[in-house]
């Protein structure tokens, strides 16, 4: 009886927790963290059950309030949605656990309650985007997610936080307005907002200027949310200034949810043939993504602030995801979607490590990190492991997604992109090995961090889990592939 309500519960558990949080915070501040952990954990378990259910019985369609689609709002959980749900709840759970000690030290006094409230809203918003089967719902959940993200960037103690948040808000608002405009365009010619219904009713209208304009608005709108290359200007500030657990969620999940929306719009609402052949928006995306990969990596090399370097690296890696999707071949799309998960783990671990280093030493400049390998051996080892996965050396998880991307590029006959991927891997190696080299072999310049030691267990455990995940899901790459494979077949209609 319970099982049929799981698609809505996975969204509602964090959202209800967000409503309870302010009241709970007034009563006992100490209870906020347990509530956040519990609700995210419940969501994580529900996502696992949903994935199992989808793998056994196929796509789940849930009718909100009992109204039949296309009139009522429909929630659809297919392989791709289930995959995104597990990724989101897994990383979020670790970020919430990590927050416990971090919040007490790194946030201004009295912000604990609002921090957890916004965090729950952010997680609920992201889950809503990936399970919904309705265009307008997608817009609303994108807004919930974005507004929470803007506020969480501003909550940081850093001096520039308000300006970074303002910049993010202004650009993000343009993006969401474009998404709403695109939704309006689709509604004007089809009279429906349901995704499955739209994909059928739109077919006679392919080639109409209204459809083309709607597609363009969606690509720009979601492009801003995804921080796809020319629209990425808000990302380095927002991601480097936000508190570290939020940087993890922003970098590993929020921009991926934007990528999810791009994939949904181009392959579910429109047919794969339309976006690749009739209106070749996909080949535009591949070139933009290739530029994002190269320019993101080049900018990352020139950064000295560790979190800013990681933020620019995210610009490059969202390029990999979009490149794989843009190729629209089976191998390429598999690589792109697999990279969502692998990059989430590796970048999560890296931002957690950066947060741990800042927590203990307050240092952000990579040249000051010299010799930290002796003081914080576990954090340093996790950083190295995750960095290797980002570069894409076997047997880490990052290797397999890049391998699939290269195969996809060759399969599509676009060997230029295979070269871009290999070249960018070299560039990535430049800036990650520089940091690893400094951490392990650099000379102590200052005596001030003599008594620095490892961070508390609540911060160390998420770091270790994600770093080990980079290896485990590299060796057993079949586990994520068993969900990604059918997801790609369903999306591309093979």
């Amino acid at each position, binding site marked *: 009886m319970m099982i049929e309500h799981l698609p809505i519960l996975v969204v509602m558990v964090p959202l209800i927790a967000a409503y309870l949080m302010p009241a709970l915070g007034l009563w006992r501040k100490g209870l906020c963290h347990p509530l956040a952990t519990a609700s995210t954990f419940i969501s994580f378990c529900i996502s696992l059950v949903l994935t199992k259910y989808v793998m056994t019985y196929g796509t789940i369609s849930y009718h909100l309030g009992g109204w039949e689609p296309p009139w009522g709002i429909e929630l659809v959980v297919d392989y791709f949605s289930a995959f995104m749900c597990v990724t989101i709840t897994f990383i979020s759970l670790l970020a919430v656990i990590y927050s416990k000690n971090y919040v007490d030290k790194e946030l201004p006094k009295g912000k604990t309650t609002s921090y957890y409230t916004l965090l729950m809203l952010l997680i609920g918003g992201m889950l809503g985007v990936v399970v919904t089967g309705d265009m307008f719902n997608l817009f609303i959940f994108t*807004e919930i997610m974005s507004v929470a993200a803007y506020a969480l960037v501003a909550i940081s103690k850093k001096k520039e936080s*308000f300006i970074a948040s303002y910049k993010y808000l202004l650009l993000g*608002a343009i993006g969401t307005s474009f998404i709403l405009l695109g939704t309006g365009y689709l509604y004007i010619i089809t009279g429906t907002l349901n995704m499955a219904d739209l994909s059928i009713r739109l077919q006679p209208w392919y080639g109409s200027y209204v459809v083309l304009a709607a597609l363009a608005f969606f690509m720009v709108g979601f492009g801003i949310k995804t921080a796809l290359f020319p629209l990425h200007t808000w990302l380095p500030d927002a991601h480097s200034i936000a508190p570290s657990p939020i940087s993890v969620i922003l970098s590993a999940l929020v921009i991926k949810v934007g990528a999810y929306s791009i994939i949904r719009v181009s392959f579910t609402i429109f047919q794969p043939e339309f976006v690749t052949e009739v209106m070749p928006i996909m080949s535009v995306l591949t070139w933009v993504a290739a530029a994002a990969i190269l320019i993101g990596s080049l900018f990352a090399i020139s950064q000295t602030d560790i979190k800013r370097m990681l933020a620019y690296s995210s610009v490059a890696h969202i390029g990999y995801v979009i490149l794989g999707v843009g190729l629209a071949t089976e191998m390429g799309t598999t690589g792109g979607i697999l990279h969502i998960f692998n990059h989430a783990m590796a970048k999560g671990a890296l931002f957690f490590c950066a947060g741990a280093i800042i927590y203990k030493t307050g240092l952000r400049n990579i040249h000051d990190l010299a010799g930290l390998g002796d003081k914080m051996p576990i954090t340093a080892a996790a950083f190295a492991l995750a960095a290797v996965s980002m570069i894409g050396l076997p047997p880490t998880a990052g290797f397999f997604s890049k391998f699939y991307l290269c195969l996809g590029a060759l399969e599509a006959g676009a060997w230029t992109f295979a070269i871009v991927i290999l070249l960018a891997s070299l560039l990535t190696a430049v800036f990650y090995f520089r940091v690893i080299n400094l951490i392990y072999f650099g000379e102590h310049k200052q005596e001030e961090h003599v008594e620095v030691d490892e961070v508390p267990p609540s911060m160390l455990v998420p770091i270790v889990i994600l770093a080990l995940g980079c290896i485990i899901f590299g060796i057993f790459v079949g586990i994520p592939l068993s969900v990604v494979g059918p997801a790609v077949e369903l999306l591309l209609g093979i």
Partner: protein
Amino acid sequence: MIEFLLDNFNYWVCVILLLIGLYAMIAKENLIKKILGLNIFSTSVLLFLISLADKEGGASPIIVPGVDVYVNPLPHVLVLTGVVVAVALTALALALTIKIYERYGTLDAEKLMEL
């Protein structure tokens, strides 16, 4: 040509408002004016949705005997939700502006960039 312009005047108004809003967000230096631009921008999208719901001679969408033509109620519902979202965004943006003013003593985007 004139007829084409007149028949679709609601869309033209939306396009003009959209461009005014976008211009204000990009070109104005004052942070409050940027927020005003944002409001004009999002309102133009909402107006567009409202205007496409209208039907000539349509009654309000409540079933009454003897009335056949109703306006489409769905866009109104969407716009109501959109208005709530826009209010939340504006409130957050204004709160941030207050905080920026408290911290830096200026709202000029160019001066803020130099800091």
